């Protein structure tokens, strides 16, 4: 069951702007290696083991509409496609086939509706329109899942470069924390456990 209950109170949109930014502590060699590769924003097939550079470019374009760049990096810059390249090569032949079949279908749509040779050369608005048409497909669910995972998984898998996913959500990957952990427990402590 997926029941949504809207409370009587309204969502305070301003909460988003009030969030603190955290510094990212880099410690793992794998993260540092990812950093050195992430300078170029353009996918040129470097470091890809499984995906071809053309299909990788298309997947990157889709990923960048799922988590778009704005004042913070999107999924392309986070290396979501390099993440896909890593995990799809690990006993995930079925998922790879879903992505390749789905991409072919999406390219046909790009051609039929916009006379474009590929999805990636369309405008963001055109891309969003096509993705909205297929957002209930297994293909979209699969690439959406992999894009999000690639933004936030351990950087050793090739995505989440420079910890951009962590920074986006205010997650600081340091291993040791002490209370208070957030606003409410600090407030509770200040009021003597009330």
């Amino acid at each position, binding site marked *: 069951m997926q029941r949504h209950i809207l409370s009587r109170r309204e969502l305070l949109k301003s909460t988003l702007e009030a969030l603190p930014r955290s510094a990212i502590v880099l410690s793992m060699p794998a993260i540092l290696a990812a950093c050195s590769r992430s300078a170029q924003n353009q996918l040129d097939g470097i470091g890809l083991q499984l995906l071809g550079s053309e299909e990788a470019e298309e997947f990157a374009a889709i990923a960048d509409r799922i988590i778009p760049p704005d004042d913070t990096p999107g999924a392309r810059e986070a290396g979501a496609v390099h993440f896909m390249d890593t995990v799809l090569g690990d006993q995930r032949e079925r998922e790879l086939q879903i992505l390749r079949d789905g991409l072919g279908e999406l390219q046909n749509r790009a051609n039929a509706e916009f006379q474009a040779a590929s999805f990636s050369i369309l405008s963001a608005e055109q891309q969003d329109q096509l993705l909205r048409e297929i957002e209930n497909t297994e293909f979209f669910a699969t690439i959406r899942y992999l894009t999000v995972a690639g933004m*936030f998984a351990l950087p*050793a898998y090739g995505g989440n470069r420079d910890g951009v996913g962590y920074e*986006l959500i205010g997650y600081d990957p340091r291993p040791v924390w002490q*209370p208070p952990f957030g606003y409410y427990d600090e407030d509770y402590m200040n009021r003597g456990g009330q």
Partner: protein
Amino acid sequence: MAGASFPTREEVDFVVVGSGAAGGIVAKELAEAGHSVVQLEQGPHLQAADFRHDEWGTFNNHDLTWSHRQGHPQTFRKTADEVATVRDRVCNYAHNVGGSSLHFSGNYWRLRPIDFMEASVRGTIAGTNFADWPIRYEELEPYYTRVDWEVGVSGLQGPWDPPRSRDYPCPPMPVKGSDVLLERGARALGYTAYPAPVAILSQPHNGRPGCIHCGFCLGFGCEVNAKSSTMITMIPAALASGNYELRTHCTVSRVETDESGRASEVVYFGEDGAEQSQRARAVVLCANGAETPRLLLMSESPRHPDGLANSSGFVGRNLMFNGYSEVTGLFPEPVNAWKSIPATRVVHDWYEIDPAEGFYGGGGIDGRHPVRSGTPMESAIASSMLGGPTWGSEYKARIREEFTHTAAFDGHTTSLPLDSNNITLDPEVRDKWGRPAIRCTYMDHPDDIATMRYFMERSVEMMEAAGALRIHASYPEDGQTNSSHMLGTCRMGDDPSTSVIDRYHRSHDVPNLFLCDGSSLVTSSRGQPTMTIMALAFRAADHINRFAQRNEI
């Protein structure tokens, strides 16, 4: 420390199959009592330095819990008239020394006196195998206390506790924002949120450090050994006893019996795939509530055509998953429930739902992060659970908001024992060793579904009282399809026709075969069974040791 080494063709006193919550305790206790013990564990001996904050490896590659990716498929169906299909997650448990005590969240609620005699007090339930336990709380209490001190539990003694002979060794864990909100909601409605007892150290104890609140807890191994797994609390002591050999990467295929009907040896595949067999005076299966019945069913023979120890037909039956409900609320300030352990407060005002509601059930509600692991990737994938788009710019904003500004009030509930919920051997699917796969058949009883809904409704009320801006509530109304709790499948009882083991964990049919793990439970607990599994293990080891000393095995 390597421990002892025993030849397979010479009889050791005990072979213990499985090294998890129960097996780690039973083996350590028997070895320290002077018996020779070989422990067979199908997974590796991972230790603190092996653990990483790797969500993809944990939740998608199933690095700890294994699946068909590692050659261990399981199949699932809701009812017996369906053909079961292979699923990623069915009976979910960690394959390593320490078993699931390595990756659990360590919620250590004791059972209460009522749990052991509920069928007598409340009445039986038609169409179910709901029954009293053959033992009472008072018999188990000393062993609960041993778990508190020897394994390590943090908590606070109070009027909410069942009677206890000794205080907790460690004070409760520091309260998290998600549980401050639970306490606020509960108090506003006249309920009591009290410090959750957990098998995670709040301060140094028995030479181990306190928790560092890293946040990668449920699903992960603890990198500082603050989590009280048997891997760190029992296995080192077993190895130090000089009477104990730990054999990892050893996958048991059957228990052999001799012409007198006694268990004689345990057959297993070593890491290299070669079949071996360890002779033993007695055998203790602690393989968990799915694997123990599977092993008994695989050990069929002309003398035991329906599987070993199965004259009752109860091996594999009465599988209980425990139920759940999940209610998420958005709050104006940072909750940061992703830090520290999952839960630090629990509300037990509905330990027994009023029978006037018209159904059986009970449980507790604790405060958590809306994704139970509380980790970034899992949280992001689930984002927009409070409504809104699941991709694009607005979704990107929601990911951030829901990671930091949410709390969840989760219900943990009872399950009823039913003939129709069970573990059997899949007729088609086999694992990498050629053993029949676990086939799980499960559909929650209508009372279990009603209980989950009831707990969801209570959580929504507390969430509103706590001041949530937006709320999302769910429970598995179509029935659960997987669980980490596999309970009741070789249950304890005085009557050999309706139970598999006696009150001392000895199988009714095979005098030198003992079973102790989640399968031993008669009822399901209120949703947090591992404390009871460990207490039963200490108690079982006490009795088995006495039987061995009196030559009664």
